[in-house]
């Protein structure tokens, strides 16, 4: 069966290589049949990659340990779901997932836009070029189809990966990472074909939004996974691999905003090309960080031969993008200018500058230890205070801008109208800040600022809906006539909830640790935890213990928690945190326990107010993104007429 997988991968490589060569030749010499043939090759590459993927999934399901990959990442006792998820649990499988999604996305994008032949003719070789890299790596550098004499059992899966989030978090992130290839390919296709009008933006608008949504949801799932699984009570550690997913998301966020300025004003054409290339480059860089093993992270695999190849590919992508944008600069000149620094366009621009500055400071934080190791041979690390400083420096103004933007008119706003629009949100913010200070929340300045700014943003968005409803007669009509804008506002509310959750759970958390014997209690932030007993547990592929504790508040029992540890015979021990979600504070009582001696435990308790707003924000984020993504028939007719009219 491994031979079939290898053959399918070789076929994929041949097909995407053909898509590059034949596609570029056809586009350059304007050969219609050859261009269609190259498109077919890209579509066929998806089919052959599906076969390769099916072979690997079958081997994983059957625990066929003659596949080295299967033996390295599964074991006989590993439940089937986790065995199947081992597809993306290792380096080779992850690369195959990249190729599978890339060829799938590519085939769909080409099929849906097949009538736009002039542009698609150049998009195909660009997508093919990206696919060639991954197909080559899979065929000759890091194959999931290497075979060996079958061992008695496999090495199993790392215990922290044996979590339901393993089924969703990595594929979701990959759908986002790889999704950024589509706007990149269309942007480069537009430059190559000299079609720098708005068509490439119109064709990729939803792709970009979908990729950005997947990336956002993927990160949130990862954050929740880390929170419930790893046992340190946090959800984001500025780990380089976490940052690797955050950076392209920030660049794509900037792009989603600035592209609206190009659509509305015909400005920022060069900037948009730079952003789309940056977002794609960072998605490749993210894959490089995870797969190369150049950094120590919970996410990264051991040292691998991929690093040099990935670096080479990143250099090729960067040089290709920079040269192409530079050569086509005359086509990207804007005919209009920013009319006023007090306008909606200007707030978008400020938002872009902050997002990109934040993205680049994170990039520097990730790259600096690598450079310091490579150049000076010194091991340096960039830690939380560095990132927190820039999170506050850029994040708080960004939060404030989310509230300012909706209050400012397009083109230019007068101070008189601004004064009138700002008065309510400003008052709401001042009152909120004052009340919080009065309640004693001034202990954390960033926390206080975050809440005050959040009140400003919330008031501004609510007002925007109220005024819009007054103007159109109903909220439904208001949203329906501009789904992108109002879907965007819902996403802003989600970001707001997220910010409130982060500020509450980090700035105002309480941490206590104590050794307890059965019957003893500990008090933390108004809760009393009483240790009852130690229970043994047994799962499908592990044994372990649970320390059963009663949680009381104000003298009344509110919950029972049972933190403990699982012991996996092959893979080793893993912490099992236990949480009480308090509806009163929208926060958690987070507990972990380790055996100190006999029945005596070391108990660690964290109270994290408002942390559940972070996860609630995820649902609103998806809903807002869906509203923005939902097809608008009127808009689609208008665009269809536009491009039909051009050819009339």
């Amino acid at each position, binding site marked *: *069966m491994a*031979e*079939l997988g290898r*053959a*399918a991968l070789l*076929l994929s490589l041949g*097909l995407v290589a*053909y898509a590059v060569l034949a596609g570029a030749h*056809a*586009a350059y010499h*304007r*050969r*219609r*049949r*050859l*261009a*269609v*043939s190259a498109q*077919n*090759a890209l*579509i*066929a590459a998806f*089919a*052959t990659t599906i*076969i390769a993927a099916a072979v690997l999934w079958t081997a994983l399901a059957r625990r066929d340990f003659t596949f080295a990959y299967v033996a390295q990442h599964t074991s006989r006792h590993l439940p089937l779901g986790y065995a199947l998820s081992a597809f993306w649990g290792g380096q080779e499988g992850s690369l195959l997932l990249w190729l599978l999604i890339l060829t799938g996305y590519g085939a769909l994008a080409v099929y849906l836009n097949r009538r736009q*032949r*002039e542009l698609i*003719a150049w998009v195909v070789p660009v997508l093919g070029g990206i696919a060639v890299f991954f197909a080559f790596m899979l065929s000759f550098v890091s194959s999931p189809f290497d075979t060996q004499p079958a061992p008695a059992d496999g090495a199993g899966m790392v215990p922290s990966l044996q979590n339901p989030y393993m089924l969703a978090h990595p594929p979701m992130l990959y759908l986002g990472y790889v999704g950024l290839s589509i706007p990149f390919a269309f942007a480069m296709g537009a430059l190559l074909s000299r*079609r720098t*009008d*708005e068509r490439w933006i119109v064709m990729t608008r939803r792709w970009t939004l979908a990729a950005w949504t997947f990336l956002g949801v993927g990160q949130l799932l990862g954050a929740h996974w880390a929170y419930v699984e790893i046992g340190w009570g946090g959800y984001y550690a500025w780990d380089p691999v976490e940052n690797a997913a955050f950076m392209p998301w920030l660049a794509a966020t900037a792009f989603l905003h600035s592209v609206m300025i190009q*659509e*509305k*004003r*015909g400005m920022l054409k060069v900037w948009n090309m730079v952003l789309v290339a940056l977002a794609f480059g960072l998605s490749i860089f993210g894959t490089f960080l995870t797969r190369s093993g150049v950094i120590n992270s919970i996410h990264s695999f051991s040292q691998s031969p991929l690093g040099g190849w990935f670096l080479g590919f990143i250099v090729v992508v960067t040089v290709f993008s920079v040269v192409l944008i530079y050569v086509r600069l005359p086509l990207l000149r804007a005919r209009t200018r920013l009319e006023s620094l007090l306008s909606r366009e200007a707030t978008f621009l400020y938002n872009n500058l902050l997002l990109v500055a934040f993205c680049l400071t994170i990039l520097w934080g990730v790259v600096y230890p690598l450079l310091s190791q490579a150049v000076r041979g010194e091991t340096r690390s960039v830690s939380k205070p560095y990132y927190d400083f820039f999170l506050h420096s850029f994040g708080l103004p960004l939060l404030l801008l989310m509230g300012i933007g909706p*209050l*400012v*008119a*397009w*083109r*230019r*706003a*007068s101070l*008189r*109208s601004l004064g*009138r*629009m700002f008065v309510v949100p400003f008052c709401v913010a001042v009152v909120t800040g004052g009340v919080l200070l009065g309640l004693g929340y001034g202990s954390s300045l960033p926390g206080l600022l975050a809440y005050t700014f959040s009140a400003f943003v919330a008031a501004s968005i609510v007002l*925007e809906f109220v*005024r*819009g409803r*007054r*103007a159109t007669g109903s909220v439904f009509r208001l949203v329906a006539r501009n789904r992108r804008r109002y879907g965007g506002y819902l996403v802003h509310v989600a970001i707001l909830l997220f910010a409130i959750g982060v500020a509450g759970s980090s700035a105002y958390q309480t941490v206590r640790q104590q050794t307890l014997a059965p019957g003893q209690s500990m008090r933390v932030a108004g809760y009393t935890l009483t240790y009852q007993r130690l229970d043994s547990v047994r799962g499908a592929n592990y044994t372990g213990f649970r320390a059963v504790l009663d949680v009381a508040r104000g003298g009344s029992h509110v919950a029972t928690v049972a933190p403990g540890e699982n012991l996996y015979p092959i893979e080793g021990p893993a912490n099992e945190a236990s949480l009480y979600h308090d509806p009163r504070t929208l926060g958690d009582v987070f507990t972990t326990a380790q055996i100190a001696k006999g029945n005596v435990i070391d108990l660690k308790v964290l109270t994290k107010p408002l942390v559940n707003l972070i996860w609630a924000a995820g649902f609103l984020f998806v809903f807002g993104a869906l509203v923005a993504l939902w097809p608008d028939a009127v808009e689609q007719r*208008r665009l269809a007429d*536009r*491009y039909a*009219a*051009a*050819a*009339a």
Partner: protein
Amino acid sequence: MTAALVLGAVLALVVVAFVARPFLREPAPASDDLVQLSEGERRRLELVEERDRAVAALRELEFDHRTGKVTDFDYREQVGPLRRRVAEALKALEGGAQAGRERKAGN
């Protein structure tokens, strides 16, 4: 091993046929040129985009005025130039279309 090789070979044949399909379907087409917009069509597309932007800007201004983001004074000051821009875009588009019709008639 043999079954895998046979399957691989069949797969290869199928994909080669699919890739070669455009040539198999049209062995000798009347034209094999990839459609490309002419200079005139490109210019027209630019004008259509400019018209759409001008119309959208006018709509935005009216909506911002209705929602109170733009005062009456600011609205009166901005609406004239925007209406002129829409009219100019429409005129340029009509002029381009007229020139196109004349070129076609001349041919």
